[in-house]
């Protein structure tokens, strides 16, 4: 089985994977809701950090918890909890980012029994020199809370090992992304997405191994179709593989992304320091920012434009979960930036209640529009 097939399989059977892991290792599984949760710290404490994601199905269980204009992702995630699909979790963590997913966390804590939960009060003033020490304090709280819960002390060596493993994971994924710069693409956007989502569900040691396999396969791999337009995907949470497959079937390939189930999650490393928690804190403050945290748009904007150039982007899909105010804010400026470079953009708002056909028409029209010389 190829590495990609393996990722796909784990995505399909994510709950089984986590349950097996638990059985196999005797460790605890902790769910996380936002990429600002320091996975290396959870892993150092012997936990399997698992990202909570939805299933993109229409559901009717969250309306009594989340009011109608909470983003569909946050609803979908809570629905999984309410339906008991994550009943194997030992813990749930969340980092302060946006109010929508805050609702998911608060309600989960209140209405779905969970042995351990912890909230990380992420200082969001990234530009302030005071942010790193503050987050360090939060991480210390988290560490102590976990130690109390598991009864195991997290040593410096544990932290070093976890930092190293996750740094490796990030480096390997960046290497895979390097391959996507080529004209002769070896991997589709949907496949790359499967890889990143799997990294958020799997034991990092196992994921690293699969990444090594994938990197060995890539030089000889080819797409079974024309790559078409080179597309960049920018936006909020996105793990809808079915959608990305549909998108790519219409005549394009996603070559680079900027979202929290993609590059934004893994792009930056922890730079080792004597003070381990301080080093982790610095990574999360200075990392590629999510608009729910960043206030200086230009910072995020500049990084995005650089990505777009480096990966030779010909078209951009700017999408957001419906009602996602953090991302909505940046969209007009981003669209303007791309317009200046003559790169066409398409804005899509996601919500499971929008029939696929409507997206399809828009994407097709966009591709028609983006094709350099139409007919």
């Amino acid at each position: 089985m190829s590495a990609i097939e393996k990722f796909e399989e784990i995505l399909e059977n994510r709950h089984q994977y986590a349950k097996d892991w638990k059985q196999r290792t005797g460790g605890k599984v902790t769910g996380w809701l936002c990429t600002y949760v320091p996975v290396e710290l959870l892993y150092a404490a012997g936990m399997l950090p698992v990202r909570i994601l939805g299933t993109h199905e229409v559901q009717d269980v969250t309306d009594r918890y989340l009011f109608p204009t909470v983003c569909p992702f946050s609803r979908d995630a809570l629905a999984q909890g309410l339906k008991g699909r994550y009943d194997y979790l030992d813990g749930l963590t969340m980092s302060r980012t946006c109010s929508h997913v805050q609702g998911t966390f608060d309600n989960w804590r209140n209405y779905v029994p969970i042995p351990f939960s912890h909230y990380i009060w992420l200082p969001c003033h990234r530009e302030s020199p005071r942010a790193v020490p503050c987050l360090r304090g939060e991480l210390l709280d988290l560490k102590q809370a976990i130690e109390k819960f598991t009864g195991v002390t997290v040593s410096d060596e544990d932290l070093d090992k976890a930092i190293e493993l996750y740094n490796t994971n990030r480096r390997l994924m960046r290497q895979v992304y390097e391959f996507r710069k080529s004209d002769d693409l070896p991997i589709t956007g949907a496949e790359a997405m499967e890889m990143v989502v799997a990294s958020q569900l799997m034991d990092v040691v196992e994921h690293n191994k699969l990444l090594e396999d994938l990197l060995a396969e890539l030089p000889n791999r080819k797409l079974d179709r024309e790559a078409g337009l080179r597309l960049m995907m920018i936006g909020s949470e996105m793990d809808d593989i079915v959608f990305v497959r549909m998108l790519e079937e219409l005549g394009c390939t996603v070559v680079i992304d900027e979202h929290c189930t993609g590059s934004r999650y893994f792009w930056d490393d922890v730079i080792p320091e004597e003070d381990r928690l301080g080093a982790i804190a610095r990574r999360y403050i200075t990392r590629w920012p999510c608009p729910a945290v960043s206030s200086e748009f230009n910072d995020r904007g500049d990084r995005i434009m650089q990505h777009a150039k480096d990966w030779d982007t010909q078209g951009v899909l700017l999408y957001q979960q419906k009602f996602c105010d953090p991302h909505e804010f940046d969209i007009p400026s981003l669209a303007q930036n791309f317009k200046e470079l003559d790169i066409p953009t398409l804005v899509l708002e996601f919500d499971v209640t929008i029939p696929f056909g409507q997206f399809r028409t828009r994407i097709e029209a966009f591709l028609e529009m983006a094709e350099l010389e139409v007919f």
Partner: protein
Amino acid sequence: MTTEYFRWTEYTWKDPDIDWRKADTLVAGIDVGSVSSQAVVLADDKIYCYCNTRTGSNSPDSAKNALGQALEGTGIKDEDLQFVVGTGYGRVNIPMAKKAITEIACHARGANYMGGPTIRTILDMGGQDLKGIHCDERGKVTQFLMNDKCAAGTGRGMEVMAELLQVPIVDVGQMSLDVPEEPEPVSSTCVIFAKSEAIGLLRSGWTKNMVLAAYCSAMAHRVVGLLERIGIEKEFTITGGISKNVGVTSRILKELGGIEAVPLAPDAQIAGAVGASLFARDLLLKSRR
């Protein structure tokens, strides 16, 4: 015998001055929309004939029916058509089409052809969609926006209203302008609820004309909201069936600050099919090269 007020007139048209047999290229564009279907035949770069009819319960039959009616009495047989492009909501289910292109691209191209290369902004108001489109001087789309989730403010809604008030849909626009003063727009443009809202108004003593005016202006307001999001670059034109409803269009233009809309001849409702036929011709010529 019941009258179906929502029915607009279906028709065909043919240019008697053109001899299609002399044409170098003979192609067609077929637009199967959610409410209406059009077929346009292009002889070289001229519209030779077209048909505008109601969409039936399935796309292939609607396409056949539209094309069949357009070709009737012309002597053209299906196999005489050298290239057919399908567009519209049912575009992927048009058996005779060699290629499907979205209605967004087609409306822009068709508007560019009928209204000239100065057109930059197109508003397409169809059966269940609203679209704002920007295009360049060749009719190529540069940006577009579409309504989603809610069909309020679309053609279907107007049909429901016509049926309810028992006013032929083709008269709705004129009648809505014939009011002593502009009433407050209705609060709900929901296609389904328009009915009870209208009943409420009639009950409180409004005339049919006023109800229509209130509905048209609510619809215009929604549309302007969409247009403001995409922005208006001149020249401006309106395509789709609602472009024939002066009650809605005049209010849109007024709300936009009194700008003008470039008229599209022969028919703004066939813009999509015209665009499709132009693409068909391009593709044909390209394949010959």
